[in-house]
């Protein structure tokens, strides 16, 4: 930035203001401009090489650059690997389709529609690198397949030509973005990890100090879910880019899993304490008074000696040591407190105390593990790297299938119109609709994206006309062409970096070159241009309409479906294989919630209900998994510990809870509660008043506290289950036999 040359007439402070403005610009705008220059450079490079290689249609290379660009994340060489593979798979599919159906366009179009639907499904279903492969595969078929089928004699050459162009575009985009001023994702990763650790320490301090209300907690949890998904996405790209991240990849995944477990547990403890606070009986007050001193001891463990909270991984090592000492002492101290207060506490209150103590111990245990992993990030190699449970985010198959079907139907409708009407530009329309379905398949709200792009295309049509017929004839050679294209492309790419203008920008980026950049053999044909432009607009309008009409992802139906899937997680927790179940449950539930968050951005009420279900699912599902693990230990170690009646009662619980979550209603809720009460009494009976070995007693006690926790979660007044219970209370379903532990 230039500084003012004559300082005398300026009012004081203007230099300062200029400097601040420059710094502000450098922080907010400069990265966008670098991105704009890089993308336009990559595009023109691909175009230039394409002309140099005498490709039939070099503009495909230019368009491909804009299709693969991503403003949010730095692009990496290895991402292009999946894209090239997708392109190759797509081209093989074309050869196959043309070979089979070249004589019958109807069948060819049906088969292409099926393929594009399949690719759209794959790209919507996967949310990592594979998604790009699917996008490119569908796009290749759309772009190459139709022209190739119209001239079957030259199919192979045409395919080779186009595939070269697409691959060229992918490689140019990858090389330019990786080599010139690369935007590393590692710093972002470190920032997220650190911010999350700090935020979580804050949350723990607030919750255990008793000063955080439910709204705050919900907001924090929603943010954590976004963080968990974001961290996973960043990790999966950064391992390709940064060798230091690759060495730590296992630990990063592990940290994410540990964090999920920890936040579920933390939430459970918080809910339990909330319920106690609300009960407001003398017994509950006594429990709170007994356990609260322990809570207050946690925050100092996460604070440095100087009084600041723990931030960096180096501090975390210290905190981990403190946590370990605390964890070792905790059970002994808890037992002492319990026996000191034992006489004052009633049965019910004792159960509450035990549950809270168990949860606190687990919170400390998991916090310790999480802190250890965080601290281990400082070293390049570490034993904690051994962690092979990967977490692959997947969008719900049903919703992805709807997206795929939508794309196929759109293409079939347009092709049918093309064949029946004999429309000369019908191939352009069908081709673009198909390509467009493939490109937008991963977008959370494709209808809105398509609408914006359609408007962008209208702009591109006008600009393209001016270019093709007024500017292009005066140009001579590639450099002149590049100079003439650069301003428009730069403007369009800059628009894509602004969230509000992104759709318009994308429309110009992709379709302006399509209309205005000449093939190697230039033809000027104004009537042809207008026909193509009309076909383009028509196909985009049809696509928009079909995205709006055919079950768009933002309808209530989608949210209801996702919510149902969310509740299904509990069924999974009850019947899934125990190995890695907790992890799958945690990540699966959060992933579903993340999907719901994506489609309910404009409807907070729906999101609120879904959030309630997520908490209920997490709490109960998690408790059930722990209970099952505990029972598995008892069964394989010492089956005689529990009488057959207790096993039977637990089996009953295992049947009624999934029934409740599959069909939430007053009857199923009452059944689940009753089964839970029966199980609690059976276990209490099994523990008995007589002497038992400590480890045995502890095991049973733990099982009991899980059951009690399920009970409190079922009775929670804020959960979406509560309205059902209110209804069932009116219907006076008997629940008197739970007398010893009625709240």
């Amino acid at each position, binding site marked *: 930035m230039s500084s003012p040359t004559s300082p005398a007439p300026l009012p004081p402070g203007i230099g300062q203001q200029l400097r601040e403005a420059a710094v502000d610009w450098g922080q907010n705008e400069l990265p966008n401009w670098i991105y704009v220059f890089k993308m336009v450079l990559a595009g023109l490079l691909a175009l230039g090489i394409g002309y140099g290689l005498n490709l039939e249609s070099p503009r495909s290379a230019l368009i491909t650059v804009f299709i693969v660009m991503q403003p949010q994340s730095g692009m990496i060489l290895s991402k292009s690997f999946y894209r090239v593979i997708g392109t190759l798979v797509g081209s093989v599919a074309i050869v196959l389709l043309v070979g089979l159906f070249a004589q019958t366009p109807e069948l060819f179009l049906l088969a292409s529609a099926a393929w594009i639907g399949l690719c759209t499904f794959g790209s919507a279903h996967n949310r990592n690198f594979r998604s790009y492969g699917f996008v490119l595969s569908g796009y290749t078929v759309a772009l190459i397949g139709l022209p190739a089928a119209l001239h079957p004699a030259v199919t192979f050459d045409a395919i080779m030509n186009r595939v070269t162009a697409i691959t060229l575009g992918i490689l140019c985009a990858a090389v330019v973005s990786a080599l010139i001023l*690369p935007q590393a994702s590692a710093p972002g990763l470190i920032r997220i990890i650190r911010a999350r650790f700090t935020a979580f320490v804050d949350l723990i301090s607030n919750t255990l100090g008793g000063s955080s209300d439910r709204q705050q907690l919900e907001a924090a949890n929603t943010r954590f879910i976004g963080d968990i998904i974001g961290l996973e996405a960043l990790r999966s790209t950064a391992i390709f880019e*940064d060798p230091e991240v690759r060495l730590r990849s296992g630990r990063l995944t592990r940290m994410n899993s540990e964090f999920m477990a920890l936040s579920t547990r933390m939430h459970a403890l918080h809910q339990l304490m909330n319920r106690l606070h609300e009960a407001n009986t003398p017994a509950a007050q006594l429990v709170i008074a007994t356990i609260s001193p322990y809570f207050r001891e946690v925050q100092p463990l996460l604070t440095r000696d100087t009084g600041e909270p723990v931030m960096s991984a180096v501090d975390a090592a210290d905190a981990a040591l403190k946590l370990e000492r605390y964890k070792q002492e905790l059970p002994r101290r808890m037992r002492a407190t319990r026996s000191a207060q034992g006489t004052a506490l009633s049965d019910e209150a004792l159960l509450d105390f035990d549950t809270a103590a168990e949860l606190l111990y687990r919170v400390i245990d998991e916090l310790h593990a999480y802190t250890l992993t965080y601290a281990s990030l400082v070293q390049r190699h570490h034993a904690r790297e051994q962690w092979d449970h990967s977490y692959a985010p997947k969008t719900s198959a049903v919703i992805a299938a709807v997206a795929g079907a939508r794309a196929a139907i759109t293409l079939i409708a347009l092709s049918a119109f093309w064949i029946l009407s004999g429309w000369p530009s019908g191939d352009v329309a069908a081709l673009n609709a198909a390509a467009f379905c493939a490109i937008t398949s991963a977008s959370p709200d494709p209808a809105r994206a398509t609408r914006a792009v359609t408007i962008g295309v209208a702009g591109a049509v006008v600009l393209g006309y001016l270019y093709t017929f007024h500017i292009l004839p005066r140009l001579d050679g590639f450099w002149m062409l590049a100079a003439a294209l650069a301003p428009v492309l730069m403007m369009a790419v800059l628009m894509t970096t602004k969230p509000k203008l992104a759709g318009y920008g994308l429309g110009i980026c992709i379709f302006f070159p399509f209309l205005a950049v000449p093939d190697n053999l230039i033809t000027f044909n104004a009537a042809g241009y207008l026909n193509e432009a009309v076909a383009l607009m028509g196909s985009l309008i049809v696509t928009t309409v079909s995205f709006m009409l055919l079950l768009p992802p933002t309808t209530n139906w989608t949210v209801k479906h996702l919510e149902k899937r969310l509740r299904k997680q509990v069924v999974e927790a009850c019947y899934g294989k125990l190995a890695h179940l907790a992890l799958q449950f945690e990540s699966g539930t959060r992933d579903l919630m993340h999907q719901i968050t994506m489609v309910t951005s404009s409807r907070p009420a729906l999101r609120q209900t879904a959030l309630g279900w997520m908490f209920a699912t997490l709490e109960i599902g998690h408790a059930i998994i722990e209970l099952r693990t505990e029972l598995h230990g008892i069964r394989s170690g010492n089956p005689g510990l529990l009488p057959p009646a207790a096993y039977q009662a637990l089996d009953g619980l295992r049947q009624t809870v999934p029934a409740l979550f599959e069909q939430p209603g007053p009857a199923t809720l009452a059944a689940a509660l009753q089964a839970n009460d029966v199980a609690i009494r059976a276990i209490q009976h099994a523990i008995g008043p007589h002497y038992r070995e400590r480890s045995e007693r502890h095991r049973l006690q733990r099982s009991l506290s899980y059951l009690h926790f399920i009970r409190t979660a079922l009775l929670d007044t804020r959960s979406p289950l509560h309205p059902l219970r209110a209804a069932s209370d009116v219907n006076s379903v008997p629940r008197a036999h739970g007398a010893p532990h009625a709240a």
Partner: protein
Amino acid sequence: MPREISFFDAYVPTLLLTMLLAGAITLLADRLLVRLGWYELVWHPALFRVSLFACIAAGLGLSIYA
């Protein structure tokens, strides 16, 4: 070395295959260099990787054409 190889009755330039081979070799070399901590000494890892690929591909290409 022949400059084109018949691959399912389609002539594929040998250079294309050597490029793929060079990519695989670069990938392996990259893993190895990561283990050795080589990239700590490198200013621009991505540039280094592309250059490594270019060197290997050129070396293999010379073995065909020279």
